[in-house]
């Protein structure tokens, strides 16, 4: 009897212990999940993020500190003017730019591409739209650095690739153009219901506009390789011309950043270091009586349009009365100013160049050139009367040799691309227009490029230490990791 009691006692002790153990484990399991986040989500929310990032990226430090100053749109003060002095000791910033480009657009769009290509969530239309955003995202990165991880890029989560190999820019461009062709085919015949109804930041899910965006962007890519792979360029351009292209400002891929502090140019303008519009831009606009002058430039405290010369050395800058120079215009630097990644105006001007270069058709080129100017003026709500008079001015008429005409197109492209300054810099690198003169004057800083406009960003030491083998391979292929090494398409 006692034995049985003892056994019962022991059994009950063991049972109590087991119960305690399992309930302990339940306690842990119950609080394992992060209550501040979700483990699954509709890819629409990631698509919106990537798309928004693509536009917000046009205002990041790669543009504000580097591209915008390289392209002589503006000059920043204090330490940020070191970039304008063509120096290259910005290791952290090169890393930050690359990290943000991959972390903003690519990280999220790669997730969308994965979700929309597998299982229950497979959706070709969404996949095609995401693919367009991915291509647009990669295009900016390769334009900035040259060779970059592309086929293996952004796959840290989906495929656990932490040291992605670099692809040549040539391969990337060729592939991007073919991806877009495929995307255009899918989107042309797609049902908007399958796309992102009520979750599409650019065109409110209007797929015809998505086709125009994809095709116009493809035209940009095709023109970009004009000097590097002329045959491919001609072939793709002709394909693009047979598909719908952006024609009116209503086609523009733009967005207003309503979140947070709004448009970053507003923060930069009101913050520190200050940004002042370049002398080059103000001279160009005022010398041609361009009605976009008051759009892109504000008058200074004394009511004048006063630009800052790019590239001054420290002593000359100290004496330059920088603080009195003109700010950016309110239309492009208010909290609610639009951001752009592709416009109809640019598309027309690309077509002008294509007509001139590929068809030798100066008349058609002039027609598109004028269309580009007109569309740009409309984009900025210039009064009709001013549009008419500006179109009547000699600036709006292509004349002279092919080079002179290309320079005219280039200058208008440079203006029309405002405020997509990064694309402005890429355009100048490819065409050499408008001419950014070599710095020879004593009051100018020649930097590490002997006074020539830098042509790329550096691979950061962070990238070299975390992905060294692959970066080395890219440097072998592309040339020294310097800011004046041209990228593949830059044959100018």
């Amino acid at each position, binding site marked *: 009897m006692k034995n049985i009691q003892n056994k019962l006692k022991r059994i009950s002790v063991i049972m109590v212990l087991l119960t305690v153990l399992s309930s302990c484990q339940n306690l842990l399991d119950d609080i394992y999940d*992060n209550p501040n986040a979700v483990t699954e989500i509709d890819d629409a929310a990631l698509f919106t993020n990537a798309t928004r990032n693509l536009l917000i990226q046009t205002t990041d430090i790669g543009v504000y500190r580097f591209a915008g100053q390289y392209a002589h749109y503006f000059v920043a003060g204090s330490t940020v003017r070191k970039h304008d002095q063509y120096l290259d000791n910005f290791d952290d910033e090169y890393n930050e730019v690359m990290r943000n480009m991959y972390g903003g657009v690519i990280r999220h769009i790669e*997730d969308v591409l994965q979700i929309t290509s597998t299982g229950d969530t497979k959706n070709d239309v969404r996949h095609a739209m995401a693919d367009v955003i991915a291509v647009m995202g990669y295009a900016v990165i390769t334009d900035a650095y040259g060779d970059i991880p592309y086929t293996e890029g952004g796959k840290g989560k989906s495929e656990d690739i932490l040291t992605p190999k670099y692809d040549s820019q040539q391969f990337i461009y060729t592939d991007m153009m073919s991806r877009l062709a495929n995307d255009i085919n899918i989107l042309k015949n797609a049902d908007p219901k399958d796309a992102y109804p009520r979750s599409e930041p650019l065109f409110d899910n209007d797929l015809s506009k998505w086709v125009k965006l994809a095709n116009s962007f493809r035209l940009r890519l095709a023109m970009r390789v004009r000097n590097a792979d002329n045959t491919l360029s001609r072939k793709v351009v002709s394909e693009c011309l047979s598909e719908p292209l952006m024609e009116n400002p209503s086609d523009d891929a733009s967005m207003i950043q309503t979140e947070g502090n709004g448009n970053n140019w507003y923060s930069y303008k009101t913050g520190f270091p200050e940004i002042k519009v370049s002398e080059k831009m103000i001279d160009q606009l005022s010398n041609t009586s361009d009605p976009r002058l008051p759009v892109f430039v504000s008058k200074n405290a004394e009511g004048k349009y006063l630009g800052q010369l790019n590239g001054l050395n420290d002593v000359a800058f*100290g004496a330059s009365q920088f603080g009195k120079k003109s700010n950016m215009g309110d239309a492009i630097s208010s909290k609610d100013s639009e951001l752009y990644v592709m416009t109809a105006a640019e598309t027309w001007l690309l077509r002008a160049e294509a007509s001139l270069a590929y068809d030798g058709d100066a008349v058609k080129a002039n027609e598109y050139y004028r269309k580009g100017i007109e569309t740009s003026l409309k984009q900025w709500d210039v009064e009709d009367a001013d549009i008419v008079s500006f179109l009547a001015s000699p600036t709006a008429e292509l004349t002279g040799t092919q080079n002179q005409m290309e320079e005219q197109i280039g200058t208008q492209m440079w203006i029309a691309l405002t405020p997509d300054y990064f694309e402005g810099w890429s355009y100048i690198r490819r065409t050499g227009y408008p001419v950014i003169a070599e710095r020879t004057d004593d009051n100018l800083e020649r930097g590490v490029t002997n006074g020539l406009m830098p042509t790329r960003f550096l691979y950061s030491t962070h990238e070299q230490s975390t992905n060294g083998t692959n970066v080395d391979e890219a440097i072998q292929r592309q040339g020294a990791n310097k800011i004046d090494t041209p990228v593949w398409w830059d044959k100018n």
Partner: protein
Amino acid sequence: MNKLLILWIVIGFSITAYSQKTVTGQVLSKDDNMPIPDVGIQVKGTDQGITTDFDGNYLLKNVNDDAILVFSYMGFKTQEIPVGDQDVINVVLETDNNTLDEVVVTALNIQRDKASLGYSVAQITSKDANLDIVKENNVVNSLTGRVSGLQVTQANTGVDGSSRVLLRGVTTISGSNRPLVVIDGIPVSGGGSGATAWGGTDGGDALSDINPDDVESISVLKGAGASAAYGSLGMNGVIIITTKSGAKKGGIGISLSSSFNVQDIMLSPDLQNEYGTGAFDQFAPIGDDGRPVLDYPFAWSWGPKMEGQEYTNWLGNQDTFTAQGNPYKDFYRMGNSITNTVAFQGASEKNSFRLSVTDQKSQGIVPNNDLNKQTYNLRASSHLTEKFNLDGRVSYVRSNVKNRPELAEGPSNTSLQLSLMPRDVRLIDVKNNTVDEFGNEMSYANDPTFNNPYWALDNVYNEDTKDRIQGMISANFDVSENLNFNGKSGIDYINRDGTYHAARGSQAIANGLGSYSNGINKSYIWNSDVLGTYKMRFAGINLNTSIGANYRKEFGNSIYVSGRDSKTDDFYRISNYKTTYSSDYSWQKAVYSFYALAEINYGGFLYFDATIRNDNSSALPKDNNSYWYHSENASLLFSKLFGIESDVFNLGKIRGSYATVGNDTGPYRTQPVYHVSQTPTLDYAVASISGSLPATNLKPERSTSWEAGIELGFYNNRISLDATYYETETTNQIMAVPISGTSGFTTKVVNAGSISNKGIEAQLNLIPVETDNFSWDMGINYTQSTSKVNSLNEGLESVILGGIHNAGVTVEARPGEEFGSIYGTDFKRDNFGTKLITDSGDIMKGEIVNFGTMNPDFYGGITNNFRYKNISLRTLISGQYGGVFYSYGRAYRMMFGTDQRSLEGRVGGIVIDGINEHTGLANEVPVPAMLKQFSEVFSNQIATNMILDATHIRMKEIVLTYTFPKSIIQSSPIQSLSISAVGTNLFFFYNAAGDIDPEAGFSSGPTGTALELGSLPSTRSFGLNLNINF
């Protein structure tokens, strides 16, 4: 009580006839003649023993006449008394000032004889460290220089700033490395904080809420052998704090303690007084508005020599160009602190309590920086029955801090601004001209990243209030003489409410739009323990075994709102802001554990103990969240074993320990998730993926260590030495390793890498003089420790632990190097190390190099205690040798031309020592001093000249105490009365960095001492303290 005593005596007499008899008596303390409970009484050479009861009485049966009774109690000198024909042995125990041969509090609050321990433990009593006299805001600061292996540094971050606390160096790359803090058996929150190089404030230290007046003793468990019983919590060592409990008094005792101290500037940078505003030896150009255009570099002190000449000052007024002296003295105020404590304590036969209230008011040297703190503490215990007792504590702290100073590169860092202000600018002008007619901030420089320091004082505000409640209850049940159960549960709850706002009008802050934030954080840590202990004695062996379990839960919840662009002035609520943001966050984590301990004592000279513990954590992957830790410790009293103990050589002990402990991680690092973005203006959803890739197979960090030590005592411990050598290797480091951004992600959480720590710790105590009227004792402690990075994640060259971006300086962990190596750019040099100089006489940018480690070669302290009759003088000197830090503060001052050292070469330029890069000949071309500094600090970011030696010796503390003799206070109700004069951080005996305090960083993180940036002046304090007991 007396009746009982008589009864014992009668019984005692009645059994004298037998050879084995019963001995009774009472044990009293010599200090206050009060009974001492729990005194151990053992028949020497046997395992027969007993302890005194609550009134100090004991009764020991079956004692032979030739037996020797050993009376021992923690903190008192052990007495041995031969029984002979006595039946009543009343004993008066003397307090023992020697640190060896004592009972110490070890892991899980188990009290053990220090001689039995196989690892190094330091126990500091309140009296040893003057805790209740000096009253450091953070009680751990009082341990600086007193405990080998423990490094405590406090940055200059205003009142209630946090401290950097490290035990045996840094062991983990990404953890806080702060030791676990346990109060009365319950682990509490012990986090610290600090600013970043970009600015911010020091939010304080959870350890600051421990009231020094309530602390009885602090026990420091340095190594894993000592802390293995805490499993994954104990990896960084443990600091065990025991609070005061109700002392044995007849009736109720009242203690009053009152202290007042003032702080003034001990050290501030040396500024030059010869050159004023301008650049290139010129005044700044005058603008159209009649004011100089003070863009950089013209707002620096590279202008003309100040000779009293007329010039246009920054306000546009005619003025004389003269130096304005030390701005720190005028800008900062004398700080002060007043602390008053009243404590009631009492005890009856079965119950005791201590209730204390402390009020502390402090004013920092930065005007507006105030602390107001109240602490209520109740400790009570009750013997409900002979075998069952309860002990409990509840404390409530309310602390309010206003205007924690902004630090480092923050625009409102007044110290940085003052150090860079052109040397001719009159502080009174700055004070009287903070805002212009449009309401915008005015400043002597057009650089809007810096505030006018007076504008900052008037317009930038922060305040935080913390309510903290700690409760603990412990039940102890002695089932039999051999079996004991203990259950404990305690909670540490913190509610912290912090608000910040800045007015409109300053470019430096929120683009001049004004900003506001308010955050509320709640958190608790809740711990419950049960422990059963069984004692066995057989064949000369004492064996204690214990089995226990622990459940720990941590919880946090925060709500935060912020806004910018204010609608109306002087109104600070979220409704007043045009752009707003809000967030909330909550987290929880739980760990349950089982553990077992065994402790074997053979013959009183050989001790062995072992611990095993199993932790199960919710922060680790679900199917792999259980881990084992263990320790084995041995101690051999060889002096006893070989019977060589004598008056000359009274103690010889060797000890050794081996242990494995661990460290899990914060919650939610093992699962990929999507965060839903707050997008009030959008009608579609936006979600994001964190840039840090989770580790789905995460394991805890693992630290394996061993240590060996020796303890020697001579001349009855008038000379005693305790030395330890240890090695620790921490592997499976949990770190978010930086990965290539091209993967789409910036970091990935991994288990990787290993860090090795090695060190020597020694403590030497001397009592050169010990007489009734005069005594002198001295303690010297020495610590040498290294912490070397063996490896990181494969392919990873370096983990950046901190840095100053604008200077290109980083603090790094690199394989094969010391943790916390400081990297920066050196001059360009030839193969022989000679600087290469350009044709224009300027330096060039060279390689990025390792300038050395922040870790000292060795550090330590010397305490001296002198007592002459009723006067005692206690001093503490602390210091370190070796270690470097980078001062961007000095770099800034050199570039701005305000530093004393920037006077070099003002006339005629500086011929830099080096060779011409083209000719190879010695450089003879002078470069203007301003361009040299500009080129070195700004254009080329060369760190070499700003890497400073952190070697220093500091007069840390002097306490002079007069205790009124009993004869004077006899007729009053006062039982004891003492008055003390206190001075802390008084001066440097030696400071290699000259005008910069090497501990004056901006963060209390593991690398907090590596970087300095415009720190607040170091302060010293003088004060008086009065202690009265009724």
